[in-house]
């Protein structure tokens, strides 16, 4: 039996078939999880944001006209909600800074694993750099797709990518010896 398309599953969901929506969730969970976890880290909030992404999509199904693919639509919601979460964290951190940061540095010094170091350095990127780096470097979207997903000019994508990579390289300098 041929696999149903996203559009067919959307029609079935609008018709009241929640199982069709579950199939859509299963189909796109990995991409959404990749983006959300890359943006906010593998935290408890990540799963909450993931749920919120799909709930918002469900609530807007009747308005979904298919100008963009379901994947694109979901990634946009995921990026926006992740940026909101990062903004909230930044506001919280205005009140709780020094202790947490101290712990972070201490932990990073003890970690040898380069992959973990990259995760830590990636997490330090500013949200606007992180969103570009997530889509391009982690999820493998082209620079044009990244620009479309974030609704920013291609030149901005390129300059943010360059700055993000430069920051990562400087942060990882002592761990990357050739």
């Amino acid at each position, binding site marked *: 039996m041929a696999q149903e398309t996203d559009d067919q599953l959307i029609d079935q969901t609008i018709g009241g078939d*929640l199982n069709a*929506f*579950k*199939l859509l*969730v*299963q189909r796109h*969970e*990995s991409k*959404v*999880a*990749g983006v959300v*976890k*890359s943006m906010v880290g593998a935290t408890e909030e*990540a*799963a909450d944001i*993931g*749920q919120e992404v*799909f*709930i918002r999509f*469900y609530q807007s199904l009747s308005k979904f006209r298919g100008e963009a693919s379901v994947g694109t639509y979901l990634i946009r919601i995921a990026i926006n909600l992740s940026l909101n979460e990062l903004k909230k964290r930044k506001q919280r951190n205005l009140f709780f800074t020094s202790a947490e940061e101290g712990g972070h540095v201490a932990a990073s010094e003890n970690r040898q694993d*380069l*992959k973990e170091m*990259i995760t830590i350095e*990636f997490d330090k990127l500013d949200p606007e750099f992180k969103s570009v*780096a997530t889509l*391009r*470097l*982690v999820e*493998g979207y082209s*620079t044009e797709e990244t620009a479309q997903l974030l609704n920013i000019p291609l030149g901005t*994508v*390129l300059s943010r*990518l*360059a700055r993000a*990579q*430069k920051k*990562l*390289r400087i942060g*990882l*300098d002592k761990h*990357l010896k*050739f």
Partner: protein
Amino acid sequence: MGMDKNKKEELLLHSFDAELSTEEKAFLEKELAADWKLKQAQQAIVKIRELLAAHQPESFGAFFAERVANRIRSFHQNVEYQLFAFFKRYQGVAIGLVIALLVINVVFADSFSLQSILGLENETINDLVQLDLYNGLIK
């Protein structure tokens, strides 16, 4: 060619994501051969990109789709949602009725004042007498 360190690195970073011109490519290759620090930076960026791209398929944990479906079910059961859905369903009809009433008021009123549009036109004593309402009230 006098290009400073930052410009060279910028060109290197752009080379990963954008198409460089023939001159830029040639210049970068020449610099990479001559400048070991730039070469090291290139290797570092390649490594970083490899590690970032080599992530495992992510998920939000077991039964994620079911958890989302449960939230949608509870959302539907929520009275507030049902009321919202009811009004949303009939909002077009309701707006149409209100507009029709306003139009009828305008058509049958003598003036185009706000009061007449809203059907609140002031009645004079004479109007009330004519309608026998005034007499009825003072009896």
